[in-house]
Every structure is written in structure tokens, then in C-alpha cells.
């Protein structure tokens, strides 16, 4: 539908007010508060969601720009009874403390692993072409848009490496 967007598989009408960001639409209009507002200016990554398979900062885009798009939020990746591999690995490795940046980290990491699997190079890659090794630096470079003030980075990287190995992205 041209005037609807699809969030975690369900269609929702676009907001009336064109000023509503995708982030505020998710948090306020849909009550999907798993997506966090940390800065509202695309500086922290806490609001990262996956739109049509790619990760974006949902605070930097208006809901009205996403008619017909498929949005996946943290709530769409897994639930407590059935968490995704990354969600489970974050708990196991203590990849968070306060938990506020966590949904953004996990959404970002989910899409990031797909980027590596698709052989998209990054600044940390050995070359622009050829296979990409899932090294610590490769993960750190690609995850640097997701800030964690508690300082859980070392554990986040460990959690992501675990899942990458598990899913054979290495």
C-alpha cells in the first residue's frame, strides 16, 4: 500500500504529521520502544533499525518517506522465548550494561553481518575485492556508528564474532 509502511510484518498507516521521524513513529505511534532515542541527530546509533534489509538511523529519516517499505526493529528480530542468535550471544557475553544502546547494536550487527556475507568492503578490509575476514578490526570499524557509553565494546565484539562463526560468515 502506498500510504502504509510495514513494521515487523504488520502494515501501519503513515502518520498525519509529516514532521514525525521514523524513530518517533515507531516509539510513540506504534509503541515499539525497543528502538531507542539517544541523540536524535544520527550520532549515536541507538535508533538503528533495518529498512528493506539495510541498517539506518531511524532518527534521520521521516516516517512519511517510507511508504511501502519493510522495517524490522529489535522486536522483530526475536523475543524473550525465542531470541535471535545475536540476542542470545549478547546476554552470554555481557555485551551491554545499561541496555539502552543494545537494540541498536543488535540491529546494526544483524545487518552488518549480512554486509560482510555480501562481501562489501570497509575501511578495515585488506582490499576492495576478494574475501573479507571477520576480524576484530573489521567488526569494530563497521560497528563504530553505534556508541556504548557503558563501555561494553570488547564484549559486543566477542558476541558478534561468536555469531559470525556460528553462521559461517568468516
Amino acid at each position, binding site marked *: 500500500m502506498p500510504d502504509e509502511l510495514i513494521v515487523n510484518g504488520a502494515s501501519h498507516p503513515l502518520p498525519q504529521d509529516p514532521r514525525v521521524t521514523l524513530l518517533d513513529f515507531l516509539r510513540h505511534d506504534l*509503541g515499539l520502544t525497543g528502538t531507542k532515542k539517544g541523540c536524535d541527530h544520527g*550520532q549515536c546509533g541507538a535508533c538503528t533499525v533495518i529498512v528493506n534489509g539495510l541498517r539506518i538511523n531511524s532518527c534521520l529519516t521521516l516516517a512519511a518517506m517510507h511508504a511501502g517499505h519493510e522495517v524490522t526493529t*529489535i522486536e522483530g528480530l526475536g523475543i524473550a522465548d525465542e*531470541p535471535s542468535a545475536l540476542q542470545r550471544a549478547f546476554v*552470554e557475553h555481557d555485551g*551491554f*550494561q545499561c541496555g539502552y544502546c543494545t537494540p541498536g547494536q543488535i540491529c546494526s550487527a544483524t545487518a552488518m553481518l549480512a554486509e560482510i556475507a555480501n562481501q562489501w568492503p570497509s575501511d*578495515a578490509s585488506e582490499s576492495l575485492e576478494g574475501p573479507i575476514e571477520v576480524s576484530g578490526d573489521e567488526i569494530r570499524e563497521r560497528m563504530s556508528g553505534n556508541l556504548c557509553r557503558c563501555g561494553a565494546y570488547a564484549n559486543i565484539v566477542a558476541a558478534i564474532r561468536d555469531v559470525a562463526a556460528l553462521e559461517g560468515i568468516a
Partner: protein
Amino acid sequence: MTVHVKQDKPATDNRLDTMRQNVIGKPVSRIEGLAKVTGTAPYAAEYPVEGCAEGVLVTATITRGSVVRIDAQSALGMPGVIAVIDDERLTTRPAQGTANEAPQQKPRTVCYWGQPIALVVAETFEQARDAAQQLVVEYQPEDDVAVSAEATDAEEQDDETVRMGNLDKAMSDAAHSVDCTYTTKGHASAAMEPHAAIAQWDGERLTVHASLQMLNYNITELSDALDLPESRIRLISRYVGGGFGSKLGVSEEVVAASLAALQLDRPVRVVMSRQQVFEGIMRRSETTQRLRLACDSDGRLTGFGHEALVSNLPGEGFAEPVLQSSHFLYPGENRELVLKLSRVHRMTAGSVRAPGEAVGMPALEAAMDILAERAGIDPVELRLRNIPDKDPEQGLPFSSHKLAECLRQGAEAFGWDGGARKPRMRREGEWWIGTGMASAARVHNVGEARARVTLKADGTALVETDMTDIGTGTYTIVAQIAGEMLGLRPEQVLVDLGDTNHPRGPGSGGSWGASSTGSAVYVACMAIREALAERLGIDETGLVLADAKAGNGTLLTELLRGQDMVREGHYKPGSISDDYLASGFGAFFSEVRVNHFTGETRVNRMLGAFGFGRVLNAKTARSQCLGGITWSIGMALTEALEFDPRDGHLVNRDLAEYHVPVHRDVPDLDVVLVEERDAAASLIQAKGIGELGMCGGAAAIANAIYNACGARVFDYPMTPDRVLAAMPE
């Protein structure tokens, strides 16, 4: 039934070690972990409240002066706008930690750029934000306002000043000495969750969901600000998206949302923008610090001088306690420690993670590195030679002291070779590689706390307290303490935190939460154990509880006879606080690379070894240390609040310009948890841990920069321009 325990003597019985459930100290995953990773843990602004209006704060665009007029009509005519609140009870600063009274009010008097002056309330956030931007405000600014510490006369803080012997003479007599001055820039807590509140007024009682660290103080501060009795207020902070000091005291949006809810008779949510958090919440003061160290030919300190200049707003009692650990970390019979405070019109200076040591230790430990070099002694060895056997100023015994163990175990784990050290010994391409180390120290605090434990008839337990979990792991360690004492797995213990309806404690701050509230939980559980032992006709010391049954095989559910058993524990530190000097200690080791051409520094690896009493949970404790080390990297290399010297406004008021460490700045980190039980620290032999990990860490990086490339930098953060300027040809 409430059980009161005042701790006058060290708890040398280590009772937790005698229990049989075997969960205390174990690396248990966070019990609230799945809620956080699935996005279902609700933070302050995320409660669905019917008919909630949205408030946006309006902040001052002058440094000092008064608000002459607020033209409410300029906003009220806009779509959806409900009210412009400029009540004189609005608070203009956050309360200091443990203030227990309202901070500065009367918003028409402006004391710093970015101070909240009014609140615009509308039906939607977008309407409120727009109207707040359009609100017409007239100011009467004042001229000649002091905005930098050097511009005013500083007051000496008498309670921090120590002068013993003759430091000048010790310096001139010394075999080796150092006299140098360091500066550190201001820091922001920058917790990921911006300050937020939803206030609801039902005509009798005000309920506020807020993001706060210390509810028992915050409820008094809010009550005082609103002039509404505490009995009519309930504060709830079940999940707090980071605090680091910035949520110690009641903050401006909590009072604004409350006043709006009271006035409008409908719920109101106020979330501060990231910029408002930077401008209107706490900063850590910048510092200027002079270090004077004198030692004999064996490297033993004979003189110790540490003077610091810090700043705060007029009227604020807080002065960054830079010298806190300098008073006892190293000996030296000739001492001069002086802290000075100047008054400037920048936002409130207050507690940011590890107030004092966070900036004091990096200066001291960088100076110690210079002394080690001049004395020709390995830096680890220099510290080992300077561990006092008692507090060098007051003569108090240490409650427990693990600095030597931390230095040795850390050095071994890191691979510190202890050989001759000279800069520029290793180069890889454009990069100089070097290593450095530093000691860590952070005073231990413990406070009065209450907690209620219910052993339920169904054989599970419930723990209730107003203590908060700000990412520290409170939920899990409380479940582990109760589980260990009562013979239950942590997941059989429901922990209900962050609600002023519960028994109160000191909250999260100054690293005192776990040992204080943990001791109250211990007291309540001990009372339950005594009651259970009585039912079995045995002495409590003979009671074995594990896997939900007693040692003789009786199930807890049988012992409870269909009834819940409830005990409230009330813990109060007694003379242990006066009889001992208690502190966490540690050692940092780092390897860095410094680019010869750009001066850029990258941390290759870093390790911290820490002794902070009993480890309650090896996983969450390690994470606290990782967090501290990460902050050390930020302080050493990137973090700096930059103020406009003309009007004192904060120039880098967001996360794009204030550079907290990101993933790529932080390598794999190692943590060594040094075995310790500190019987005089708390009933559970635990000390604070949330701050120790950044108390000195920046110096390990600074010292590694010197070892790598020969650049001695005296200003933190050590940005490429500064390193390049100090780099020898």
C-alpha cells in the same frame, strides 16, 4: 519485621563463603538480560500512558542575567500547544548527588548558557518542539561574566588541604624529583539515555517515571522543589540507561514534568534533547594540577605535593575532589595537598564517573612515570617501593590493601618485562610502539540501606528495594546474594528495584550501591535463615540451604508451611567507616602505537588488575572494569568539553563533537580480578567497583605514548596536535 545491623567491626566471618548454593561470585548472565536485548525493558519515557501530553524545555541563550519577559502567546497560538510553564519552582540545575534538597530554582535568573527557563507543553512532541523554538523570550544580560577558572580568584577548600613537614626542603634535598603541571579538560557523563520523565497526578498522589540513580534522595529533592509532601510522591526508575553521575540528583525535566502535570491535571512527558543534556546537566570540572614528587636514591618518596584548581557555578558546594586518593596512595612525610575552587558561569560542575580520582590519578601517575625515569627504577618497582603500611596522613589502618598484588599480577598477565626503558625502541612503519603503566585507586564508600526479602510459600524469593540498576548489574548480584543465602538459583529470586514504595537505600553512586544494599539484603536473608533454623530446631550456623531444601532434605516449601516469610534488613555502617581507610586498588598496563607523522595514538591492548573486595559476579564485575578502562581511553585521547572563552557556552554539545570512544577506539581488553575479602568494607566483604577502572588508566596510555615516541604531553586529552608538538625530532 525489621532487623537492624550497625557494623562497628569487620565482618571477618565471610559467611557467604560458607553457603552451599554456590552462586555468589559466579559469572551469572544478567537476569534482566533478555528484556534488554529484545527491547522490552521499559526506560523512563517508555511507559504507555493514556492522554500523555509532551513537554519540551526552553533554555537560556545568554550566560548571565535575567529573563525579563516570556511571551506565552507566541507559543500558545500554535497548533496543539496546551501551556507554557514558567513556574518559579522550575529547577535550573540538577541537584548534586545526596543533596537531599531542591537545587537552584527561580528560572528567570540565568546563571549559565543553556539553563532551562520554561517548558512548552503540547499534544504532540513535534508541536511542542516547534513551539519551544518559536517562544519569544526577552533577556536583560549582564556584562563581564567570568567564564573561565583563571579569570577569578579561587577559594582554597580547607577540608581538603593538608600541609605536613617541609615540602620545599624535601624537594631541594631529594635525590630525584619532579615538579610539573598537568591540565585536564571537562568531561560529560553522556549516558546513552537522555534524561526523561513522565509525571502523573491523580489529585492525591504524583507518580513519576524518571531516569534517576538515587531515589531516596531524589524524592526529597522533588518534594522540596514542588512543596509537596514526600508521602504524596512515588518515583519509579526500573531501568536507567546509564548514569555515570549525571542522574545522581533530581534533574530539571523531572521537576518540569511534575509541575506541568500538577498544573494541567494530565500526564506530561519531558525528554531532554541530547544538546540540553550536555548544556544543562553536570559537567566534570576542568582541572589544573601541579605535582611535586621527591624521592631518595632508592626511589622512596620523601615529599608529596598535589595542588589542583577546579571550578563550579556560584552557589554550588561541589568541588571536584581531585586529591581524594592522593591523600593515602603514596607515602612522603613532607606533604602539601591543596584544592582550590573558582567560580565561573558554566553549567553545574558535579559528579561524573569517579569524581576526583578520574582526573587526579592520571596526573599523579604520569608524574610518577617521570620520577621512575629520573630515578632509573622500573615504574612497577617504583610503585611497589612506595606502598604505605598505613594512611600516611591520619595514621589509620587500611581495611585491606591489594595494590602490590594488582601490580604483580597485572604485570605478569600483561607481559611487562621490567627491563630498561627508553623511548623509541620499537617502530613498525609509521608507528612507534610503546608500553606504559599506572596505579589505580578509588576510595570505598558504604551507606545506610534497607531491603525487604520475602521467602514465598512456593519456595521462590522476592527482594524489594529502591536501589537502582544503572547497568551495574544490581538485579543480578542481588539475586545471587539472596540465592546464596536462601539456597535458591538466581532465577528463583525476583528482584524488584527502583521504586520509592520499597524500603530505601543509598542508590547507585560513588560505587556504593552493591556493598550497601547488598549488606541490607544479607541482613534480611540472615534473619530468614535464623527463623528457618529455629523451625528445624538447629542453630543458624548449622543450617545448610541449597537447591531449595535444607541439609536434612526438608524442602523450603515444607518449612514455610504455606506461608510467606518476610524480613526487612536495615544495614548501617558504624565505626568501621571511621576506624579504617577503605579503598579499591589496581594497576593498568597498556600498549599503544603513535604515528610519527600525524601524532595519532591508537591503543593496541590494555589490561587492568583490580582488587575491590569480594567479587559478587565475575561477569558483571569484569564488565564494570571494561567500562572504566574504556573511559580511560576516552579521557586519555579524545574527551574534552570545549567552551567559548567569550560567553562560556559549550561548543561541542553533542555526540558528534564530544568524542566518547567508539568501537574502533577500543581494542580487546583484559581484566584480572584479584582475590580479596575486605571485612571492614561491608558485611559482604565487597567494595565499590564501578569507578575504579578509570582511576589512573589514562596515565597508562600517556606513559605508553612517551615510551613509544618520546613525547611527554602534560595536557589531557592527548590529541594528535598535542602529541605532535611534544614529539622530539
